[in-house]
């Protein structure tokens, strides 16, 4: 457990989620990745729960700035509208007291609590089987908060309700953003003719997708078609650790060994059957997600149900935005994504993420993923400028 605690502490730092995380694993005794004054209090939290892992950390920037603002705006619970929150987190509870009792009150109901006490801000998450579970939740909280913050600011700007505090937080968060990566890497060249080549290409593309921050490591998925078999990342696999986590799934469904494959296998298969693609890359780049949720249609009858009911033909330049939930339900993206991405370089699923395809290898989908995210980032700030100009005119 000590090794796992240390591993996920490192991962939090590498992913830019925290700088000095506290991670504990618990079996018949508690082990921490390091010593800290907070350990004694957090041990009381652990004693009050049925869990085997806990993370407590101040989020790194820009998440710290973002969450510091959001907890003041939403002092009870932050409720982002993105897919991660809607499906898995439901909401992000907030506490103003850093005590075992206060933390337990929230963790008995939810997977995380964000504690803002005086100048301190901590995210606390837990797992019932592994520190990895706590890591995934921590990562989701940061991502969801990021999306909500930038989406809120744009909406508030248009409605002329940005406060001085929000303006300052926005300016600071923007100044802390990493610069957009400019050039895509040179990835393995196709066409691939063997399983080994396919797996090597997928591992490499996954690694770069995470490295370029086009997805948080445990989200997104990747696949490659070789003859009549689709090789796809397993559900819940980390795109930067794909070795041993790729399932070969026959397109004719003659084996169920792919039961552990990504929940988007059906969508991937359908895309392969519709167009001459050989590779699919799915990331959660934040500005594509933010822009997918930016819609100012007044009095839309589908408002509040955009993620499943949006009937408008929405685009960011040439890239369509479509509704669809994770998986295969009646409102699943397996129904909406394949037709939308046919004859397109990519498609954005509302509040969820971006899918891109390639005809030979992963150079094309990676390049498109990066290009579309950079385009969305530019477009976001263009919309900010337009809203600012409009406000100034008024």
């Amino acid at each position, binding site marked *: 457990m000590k090794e796992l605690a240390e591993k996920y502490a490192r991962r939090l730092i590498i992913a830019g989620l925290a700088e000095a995380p506290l991670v504990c694993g618990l079996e018949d005794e508690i082990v921490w990745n390091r010593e800290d004054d907070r350990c004694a209090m957090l041990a009381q939290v652990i004693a009050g729960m049925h869990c085997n892992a806990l993370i407590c950390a101040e989020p790194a920037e820009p998440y710290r700035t973002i969450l510091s603002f959001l907890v003041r705006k939403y002092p009870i619970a932050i409720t982002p509208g993105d897919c991660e929150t809607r499906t898995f987190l439901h909401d992000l509870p907030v506490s103003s007291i850093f005590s075992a009792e206060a933390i337990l009150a929230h963790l008995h109901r939810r997977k995380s609590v964000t504690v803002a006490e005086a100048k301190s801000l901590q995210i606390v998450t837990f797992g019932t089987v592994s520190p990895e579970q706590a890591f995934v939740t921590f990562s989701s909280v940061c991502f969801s908060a990021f999306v909500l913050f930038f989406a809120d600011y744009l909406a508030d700007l248009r409605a002329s309700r940005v406060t001085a505090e929000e303006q300052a937080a926005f300016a600071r968060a923007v100044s802390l953003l990493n610069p957009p990566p400019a050039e895509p890497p040179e990835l393995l060249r196709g066409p691939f003719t063997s399983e080994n080549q396919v797996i090597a290409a997928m591992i490499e593309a996954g690694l770069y997708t995470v490295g370029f921050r086009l997805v948080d490591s445990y989200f997104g998925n990747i696949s490659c078609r070789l003859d009549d078999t689709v090789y796809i990342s397993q559900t819940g696999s980390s795109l930067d650790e794909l070795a041993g986590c790729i399932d070969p799934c026959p397109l004719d469904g003659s084996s169920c060994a792919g039961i552990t494959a990504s929940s988007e296998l*059906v969508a991937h298969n359908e895309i392969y059957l519709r167009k001459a693609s050989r590779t699919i890359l799915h990331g959660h780049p934040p500005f594509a997600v933010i822009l997918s949720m930016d819609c100012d249609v007044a009095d839309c009858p589908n408002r509040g149900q955009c993620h499943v009911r949006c009937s408008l033909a929405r685009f960011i330049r040439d890239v369509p935005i479509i509704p669809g939930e994770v998986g295969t339900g009646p409102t699943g993206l397996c129904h909406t994504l394949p037709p939308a991405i046919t004859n397109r370089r990519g498609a954005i699923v509302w509040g969820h993420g971006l899918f891109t395809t390639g005809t030979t290898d992963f150079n094309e989908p990676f390049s498109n993923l990066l290009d579309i995210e950079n385009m969305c980032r530019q477009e976001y700030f263009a919309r900010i400028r337009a809203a600012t100009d409009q406000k100034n005119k008024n």
Partner: protein
Amino acid sequence: MNKMTGWTGRVLHIDLTSGETTVLAPPEELYLRFIGGRGLAGSFLRPQVKLPWDHPDMPLLLFTGPLVGTAAPTSGRSTVMSRSPLTGTIADSSVGGRLGFQLKRAGWDGIIITGKAQTPSGIEIEEERIRITNASHLSGKTTSAIFNAFADGRRSVAAIGPAAENGVAFSALMVDRHHAAGRTGIGLCFAAKNLKYLTVAGSGKVRVHDRQALLAAREDILRLTAASPVLMGRHGFSCFGTGSLYDLMDSRRMMPTDNFQRTRFEQAGEMNAHAYREAYQPEKYGCMGCHIRCKKIARSGGARGVSMPEFETMSHFTALIGNIDLHLVLTANALCNDLGLDTISTAAALACYRELAGDIDLTPCLLDLVTRIGTAADDLGRALGRGAQDFARARQHEESAMVVKGLELPAYDPRGAYGMSLAYALSTRGGCHLRAYPVSHEILRKPVATDRFTYSGKARIIKIAEDQNAVVDSLSACKFIFFAAGLEEYARAYAAVTGLAATAEDLQNAGERIYYQERIMNAGNGFTAMDDDLPQRFFTEAGSGDESLPIKPLDREAFLAARAKYYRIRGLDEQGRPTPEKITELGLR
């Protein structure tokens, strides 16, 4: 007047000796502490659990939970419980179909059956009306015959077959034709009361505290289910049934083959769920209140209307006994259902027999052997019908009985998933995969993947999962949906139904209490650490691995160390027995 919502507040006691019925109104406190289903049944079993399994005062219990009959997904289940004739431990099975749903709609949270009828009997419940019938004319009939006799579609029907009447220790209770309370010999507990069948029909509505909140919780649960590849994915349970695990278990080198002597079955690719789909074009069928509908019913291939085998049956009736005839699996499964035999124990007993006979080809005589077991037709049939452990022990080869506490092991070889080895050893009903179901994270990657070849962290994981599943069986819901949802979402459903401000942690605490009570009952019947163990084979023989995926024997020292950690985490003494301190802490005095 019952002020509770979710529960009816009424439990029916039927004494088959006297024919009298009594209505009990358990205190609200009991519901809050034990929830329903498995938990509540356990609380009624405990005072009598030291009696012999066939003592007239030994209760036979059928209980539903507060979510049954509501809009909470997959919550149409119930628990049947008594003391096991096969193992001597507590005996329980969570069963689907419509039994729990009808019972709740008839106004009952549960039924307690004691005594013994003078002649073969049936119990017919319609709303509040209870009828004990003479079922002599149905004696010896197959379960199909019973279901045909009550085929009006209005009632839920539970019945035993000839196997239970003939004393088979692992006989099952069949429910609504396609569902089984299969494990631990619960069918024989029915036979011990001279009870051939039970029918229930109800039309009442279950009162719900906050319908809108329940629908909101339901929506969250359904969304999570849709996102689950295991449940709703292209290769998942909804499309292929539990048989979709077949390919995976073989590819992970975890398929028990030749009585667990190997872990790879070379013909698996031809015997998988896809092959059944090609041969029988099965349709989806589900328990009441379930949208996953993992049960599959054949539509063609000369087997129209026949239940498709579940994963365990697919695996044990092929790899475990060396059979490569797909249709024979289907037929053997149907025969077991008709005779009222647990398919896992039947196949495991046969595999033990086969090994001791020198790995003979059972295929030509398989159906005959199953029939001889179910009808106790001869010495061999009767000997096998006492279970693998008794069979092997009588032949001085106990090492060939692949059992834990006398219950035959299901189709996950523990050398390929170390958490499963702990789960088997520590289960309160013997060799059972469902108490902790570590396959969820060790193989299916939910909620996240864990390293299947390590004991690190597993003791606590198993304990937490046991508690969770205990409360799931008590709510009552289906354990499969917890591949996707969690107690976080189900606590909201529970709170909406009952009006109690319960959290996931509250439910988990109830699960801990329910599970610990089972340890108390088993300890009272003499079970100790000696029984929390695995067959020696797993520690001395390797599985069918290769250089890239070695399947080593389990490390005995590491297993014992993990088990000792589990005892500490669970609050048991070094012999695995409950401690006074923990009993007090959990309010179980």
